[in-house]
């Protein structure tokens, strides 16, 4: 199980990387390697060129400007996990990171790499969908931004051109005091979720004034439960309300694989949607799924 032969390139600047990507045939970008390396070792991908982004300057870092958290694509998941800024401004991302692989894989894994791999159950993909993030890309023609809703083009396929590189992720921050909950159901700790749920709530005067609910792992890309979001805004958060409205998640189009049938996924979508909303609204009871993380 050894990688196929390829030529290795280690550009130091983004311009150099974009230049290489634009001119080399059958090239593959290497970020943290936690998804690409297994595929190379198994020869599922056979690139002629590997362009390593790890030495490109200026592609990592976390900062907040005007209510937007900007994260360099090459920022390690571990940096995000230990970032006070992330914990304070984007608690959903902070919670979700605890489920991304294991600490050891987070030491190498990057946010950009995870988003470009675009596993349907990847936690960071779900968070970006929940937060209406935008993706900044650079290509030969310059830079552009992609709304995250438009980013997944299909299964494991981001909507970027072959000659474009994701450079940053911009996450609009919710107002201070908002509530967030990320929960997932996976076979084992650290595995990709079978189904995950990300809930963001703004509660003012005992009423929900703003809501975001995203279900990951059910379809080829995470889906926003817009029906639920609309139904709960203006309402007081109660378990009864959440139980009732989350039933609509059963109608999501769902994938089937060796771990779960479509029907089971749809059922889990309902269960996790409700549990995520309850947890975000501090309604969670003493059940064990409400304790960890």
């Amino acid at each position: 199980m050894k990688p196929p032969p390829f030529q290795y390139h280690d550009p130091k600047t983004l311009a150099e990387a974009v230049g290489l990507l634009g001119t080399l045939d059958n090239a593959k970008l290497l970020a943290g390697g936690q998804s690409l390396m297994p595929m190379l070792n198994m020869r599922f991908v056979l690139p002629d060129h590997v362009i390593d982004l790890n030495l490109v300057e200026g592609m990592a870092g976390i900062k907040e400007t005007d209510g937007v958290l900007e994260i360099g694509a090459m920022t390690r998941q571990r940096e995000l996990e230990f970032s006070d800024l992330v914990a304070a401004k984007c608690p959903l991302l902070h919670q979700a990171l605890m489920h991304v692989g294991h600490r050891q894989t987070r030491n190498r894994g990057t946010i950009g790499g995870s988003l470009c791999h675009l596993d349907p159950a990847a936690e960071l993909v779900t968070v970006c969908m929940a937060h209406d993030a935008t993706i900044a890309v650079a290509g030969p023609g310059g830079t552009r931004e992609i709304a995250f809703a438009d980013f997944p083009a299909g299964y494991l396929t981001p909507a970027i051109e072959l000659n474009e590189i994701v450079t940053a992720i911009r996450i609009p921050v919710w107002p201070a005091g908002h509530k967030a909950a990320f929960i997932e159901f996976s076979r084992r700790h650290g595995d990709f979720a079978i189904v995950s749920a990300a809930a963001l709530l703004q509660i003012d005067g005992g009423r929900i004034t703003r809501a975001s609910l995203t279900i990951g792992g059910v379809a080829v890309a995470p889906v926003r439960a817009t029906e639920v979001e609309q139904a709960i805004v203006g309402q007081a958060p109660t378990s009864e309300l959440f139980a009732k409205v989350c039933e609509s998640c059963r109608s999501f189009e769902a994938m089937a694989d060796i771990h779960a049938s479509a029907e089971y996924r749809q059922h889990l979508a309902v269960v996790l949607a409700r549990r995520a909303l309850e947890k975000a609204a501090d309604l969670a009871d003493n059940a064990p799924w409400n304790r960890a993380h």
Partner: protein
Amino acid sequence: MNARMLIGQPVHRAEDSRFLKGAGRFVDDLAREGMLHAVVLRSAVAHGRIRGIDATAARAMPGVHAVITAADISAALGNVPVIPLRLANLPEFKGYLQPVVAGDKVRYVGEPIAVVVAETQCIAEDALDKIAVDIERLPALPDRHAAAADASLLFEAAGSNRAVRYEAKFGDADAVFAKAEYTRKEKFRCHRLTGLPLETRGQIAEWDKDKKRLTVFGATKVLFFNRRTLAPMLGITEADIDMIEVDVGGGFGVKGEFYPEDFLIPFVARTVGRPVKWIEDRREHLVATNHSREVDCELEIACRRDGTILAMRGHITADMGAYIRTNGGVVPAKAAQFLPGPYRIRDVGLTVEAFVTSKTPVGTLRAPGRFEANFFRERLLDIVAADLGLDVMDFRRKNLIQETELPFATGKLVPYEPETDFDTGDYHVTFERAVAEIGWDQNKALNGKLVDGRYRGLAAVPFVESGGSGKENSRLVIEKDGTVSVYVGSSVLGQGLETTLAQVAADTLKLPFEAIKILHGSTTYLKEGFGTFASRSMVVGGCAVMDGCNNLLAAIRVAARERLGFPNEEIEIADGVVAAGGKRAGLTEFAGLEVEGSFSTTTRTYSYGAHACHVAVDPRTGHVDILDYVAIEDVGVAINPHIVHGQAIGALVQGLGGVFLDQIMYDRDAQMLNASLADYLVPLATDFANVRAITMELRRSKTNPLGAKGAGEGGMVAVAATIANAVAAALKPLGVEVCDLPLSPARLWGLVNGASLARKS
């Protein structure tokens, strides 16, 4: 035996120091001068006829030394050898043996088709991608039902996909069933999984052209048998082959059997005239190394209404995969044998059927057949108890064999084994301990209750388990420095024998632990050895060492008198000093003294015990949390309690993986769907934290002077039975029964959902 000092002590392991420093020597850590690397081209088609193999492009690549196919082997040897049976040697299996490489047909995905030898593994893999194989597809046989239809035959010459059908009985079950006041029949199923040692298989074969001798590094488990198998295949004698055991990264039954590569790599090494290394990669491992456990059972019980079990009938049907491998037949045979379990059942009727399918062949996996049989029986017992309105524990107590009834004849339930009796033990003591440890009396009211959104369930089940028979040899040599080298035919796959056998030797010779060196496995050490399987190494290996030690003591006494003029009176030997009547000599004066030892028994030991657990089931997701699990086992004598406990916990967690996680899945084309560790799931540190093991030393075995019973599998045998009964107890209010493994969340949710749909309609 004299006062013991080390036996029974949690001595730190002698082998740990090298492993902790990264100085272990596993086969992939070895490199030989001029060594080349081999990779195996495997079938991507489950069942088909090979029309042609074109390796021209691969052979032409720089750095490629050879591409070997069945045609090359036939040309060199006149035939393509087949792999013989080691255990469960039933004549019916003869037509279903595996050739060392596919010639005319392929019968499972992963079957070897060719071997590429090159300068590096990278180059070998590059070349492998360039070999074109033309296979005419034949209908795949993805399960035993497809196989039973015989619409497509895996072995045309055999005429049937059913490799064997036999009956075994004890008493007259049919007569009892005919007049029983209560009978109950249920169908159960155990899924396919594998042992997954963290180190995959591998070896280095080296052919000495001048001496015409072969050396194989990385052999394990049954090295002498494998040498005996390999020699005639290559047309050489056993004496021409050295099998060398180096450190082994776990076996669990699957590693060390004779596989196709155990012929192919020596063959290619002789062909190219250079040492050749082959290390199985993890994807290969999942399709090439033995699978196990895929067994169905129709089980029937006859009882009095008061709960007295009268008779049992069982029909075991096994999916053997594409070939009957060295020990594949053990799996269904033992699944049948252990159906009656530790209960007083005098009339037993068993039927065993084994089918070949177009999947990876099966072999033994830790607690083969026992894991399955206990699950089948104990599930049925709970169903029966509910039918008859009996307390599940009282029902078991009533039928559990009493110590006064031992030895208890179990008849000849295995066609290739003699009749055996359960030997010694008090099955009630371990059972009651398990019942008490889990807090049955206080907690039984929780059964089926929702607590914090989860259903609680408890269970406790007893088991009896066989192991430890056959023969083993040892050889002892006093070294120049007065230490003793102990050579033994037992093989080490991580179970700490370098420590436990040294404890036995040190105590018997009255020497300090450090004065003993255990050397194991390799064929260079002994004239004949028998290896490690079925929890036998302490029983037969330990006793062979003990016998060798006693022979050494006798030889020292003779030498002291004859050579050193010791007086003709009692000679004391202790702490390396030989003394009698004022004369003393150190062991160094006996350097070079060499003796042999051996131990042999045809009677198996029967360790026994009980498992109990307390679970919580989330009905909305199907997830099961283990709140408490305890495994109790009487091992007779625990030579090293630390190691015995480690074996128990390790087996238990591995068993829990087999209940909830480990599962090999195939589609209708018999393509394996989860041949990576991302999809073949084994337990992590976070999965089963709340498990306990209690080792008891209640009754020594009478079959061997150590009094030991097997201890490697007791943590595994009753896991499926215990968990399944606890989960079934938890979900009882929903009206579902648990009859199929694994208990994956999807399956449990499916049961819950099915029941709720049934209620609604």
